[in-house]
């Protein structure tokens, strides 16, 4: 199950809520304002690392990172373009946390 998150974790509880429901192996894809979660050096770094450690792959949509001027992402986060988003949807059912 692919979880997409589109809200900034600084203003909205979506990320902290969604991670409670993650199952082992479920990937997360950050899109839109959600990508602020993976900016290197911010205070969500520990949360992102703990998700990765539980074998949940973490992705972020590169066009959304670029649009927001985020060039460095937290270690272990994979960036994908829209085609990569489609690839993830091929592999998984989708749970879009709005």
């Amino acid at each position, binding site marked *: 199950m692919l979880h997409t998150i*589109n809200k900034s974790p600084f203003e909205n509880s979506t990320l902290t809520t969604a991670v409670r429901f993650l199952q082992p192996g479920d990937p997360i894809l950050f*899109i*839109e*304002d959600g990508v602020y979660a993976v900016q290197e050096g911010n205070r969500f770094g520990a949360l992102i690392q703990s998700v990765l450690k539980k074998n949940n792959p973490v992705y972020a949509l590169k*066009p959304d990172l670029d649009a927001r001027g985020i060039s460095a992402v937290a270690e272990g986060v994979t960036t994908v*373009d*829209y*085609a990569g*988003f*489609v*690839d993830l*949807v*091929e592999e998984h*059912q*989708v749970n*879009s946390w*709005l």
Partner: protein
Amino acid sequence: MNIGILLKEGPYNHQASDTAYKFAEAAIAKGHKVDAVFLYNDGVNNATRLGDPPQDDRNVAARWSELAQNNGFKVLACIAASKRRGINDDVLIDGGEITGLGTLTDIAIRNDRLLTFGD
């Protein structure tokens, strides 16, 4: 893979419609079939052809209209949500259609994926 898209926010105010469009484009480019885009909540506002954005900006509704017609799918607006918000047949984009939530249920049932975009 057959894909349905549920779009829950109107154009411009939220990025949802842009992301859904970019995703649909990419899926089509990879050989997948977009079965339908279903508009719900303020998403029905994507179906009006009255929008007239600045020349240097994208035209969200026109873009959906074109993608739908070029790829054999419909942009479907929920009738109840549309009536509340003033979307009717007179203002509908080409490739758009007003329909009921039963159609969304069919879309959910018959496709490999139903993706939601919203706020």
